[in-house]
């Protein structure tokens, strides 16, 4: 295996690393562009509308046009905002969302995957950094709606991070590893098949906590447009606003890819090439997220925290105990 630590750093090696990063970034931007298109089409379809259909054939260039519009808009910084933090916050929010993609095994041959021994922990640790960016954005905007949105967001994301971490513990116990590549390989040989079957409780908790981590409906209180204007990014415009949207959609993709890896057997599957299997499974989970968004009402603020602490965490703990007991017996 290539070891970047021991290899002398030559310009060509550095160039190779840079090219790899740029390729992944371009890929992610393409995925996010069509994720937004897909979301609008799916929600339109579920609500009996048509969705975007004007720009390009079938409206396929709609998101491109939207992004272009955001990029050429004026970058407004409010006069009373905390300038340094206001500028830095979108970066703090986006960088971790891009970094977590490094550990996800997309194909059987791991072209882009860092074969990290603590891959799962890496994902959970880095995704917690985004909260800092969101809180900073809310605080630096110097706007009461932004501040409220930022605080709600921090409270919600920190609370739901715990059930998210606990729900994947069952998978870790079954596979005996935090390495995502090893977890995928274990699912091929496990007697129950993919971990969605022995870990169905963990999967349900994971999906609920993931929805809350993503700040998506029914957990979109931090950006509830009817009460908070738009939450923590009310004051943002132009490409800084685009950065927040980008990191949100990169997380949608990343958490779906993580769920695929942990519970749906990753890239494994018959006949088709591995990357296509991975794409199909990830798309199915992404479709589920959009489906939930189109059909569920928003949760009430006072139910939100008690649901995380009194329902999700005990259920996830029960799942851990159950998994331990079953693996002792079997």
């Amino acid at each position: 295996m290539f070891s970047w630590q021991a290899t002398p750093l030559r310009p060509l090696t550095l160039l190779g690393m840079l090219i790899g990063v740029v390729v992944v970034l371009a890929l992610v931007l393409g995925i996010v562009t069509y994720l937004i298109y897909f979301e609008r089409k799916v929600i339109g379809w579920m609500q009996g509308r048509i969705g975007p259909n004007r720009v390009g054939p079938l409206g396929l260039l709609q998101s491109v046009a939207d992004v272009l519009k955001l990029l050429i808009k004026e970058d407004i910084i409010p006069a009373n905002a905390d300038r340094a933090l206001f500028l830095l916050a979108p970066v703090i929010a986006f960088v971790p969302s891009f970094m977590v993609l490094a550990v996800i095994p997309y194909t059987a041959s791991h072209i882009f995957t860092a074969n990290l021994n603590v891959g799962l922990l890496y994902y959970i640790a880095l995704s917690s950094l985004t909260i800092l960016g969101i809180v900073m954005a809310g605080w630096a905007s110097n706007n009461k709606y932004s501040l409220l949105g930022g605080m709600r967001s921090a409270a919600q994301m920190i609370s739901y991070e715990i059930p998210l971490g606990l729900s994947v513990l069952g998978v870790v116990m079954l596979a005996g590893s935090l390495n995502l590549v090893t977890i995928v390989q274990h699912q091929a040989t496990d007697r129950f098949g993919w971990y969605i079957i022995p870990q169905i409780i963990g999967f349900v908790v994971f999906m609920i906590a993931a929805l809350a981590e993503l700040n998506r409906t029914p957990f979109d209180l931090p950006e509830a447009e009817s009460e908070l204007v738009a939450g923590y990014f009310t004051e943002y415009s132009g490409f800084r606003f685009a950065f927040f949207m980008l990191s949100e959609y990169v997380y949608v993709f990343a958490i779906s890819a993580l769920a695929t890896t942990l519970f749906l057997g990753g890239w494994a599957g018959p006949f088709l090439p591995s990357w296509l299997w991975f794409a199909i499974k990830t798309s199915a989970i992404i479709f589920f997220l959009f489906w939930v968004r189109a059909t569920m009402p928003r949760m009430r603020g006072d139910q939100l925290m008690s649901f995380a602490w009194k329902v999700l965490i005990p259920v996830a703990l029960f799942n851990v105990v159950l998994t331990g007991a079953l693996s002792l017996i079997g």
Partner: protein
Amino acid sequence: MFFGMPLTGQTVSFFLLALLIIASGVMLMTLTKVMHMAVALAGVFLGVAGIFILLGADFVGMAQILVYAGAITILMVFALMLTQKGDDTESPEASTGRSLLTLLGVVVFTGIMLLVLRGTTWPYSQSAVDPYTQPTVVLIAQSLYHTYTIPFELLSLILTAALVGSVVIARKED
């Protein structure tokens, strides 16, 4: 070669991380707004996590990011947001005598540290990049749950008792 060191990914990232830690540390001390300091502190935590990972302790590094850069920083920011009012800039500059004394202290401390660091023979292995035979997660789990099970369980009992106790005391106030 760079001052007698091979120019590998490891040395380059070490110097970048050291730069990050020192710069964030200096910013932490010089910035006037408490909220900016919290962000600088997150920078220090991230740099230290990077050093842990460079040393092969990837589990500790990730726990450092999760607990310190993620949770502790957010907790501090949260507390600041809830309590802070109005102007938070600090008191004016210290006097010349105090600055001189500080400089003296720093020089003496640096001298002692250099003397000790230079005088110590450090354990050194030839295949230094990956010093552990097993993944560090496995090693940590074995020492926690096999070798030191009882101290570990006692510690968690004490921590749980402290947690419950703090909740009870906080409830009594209102």
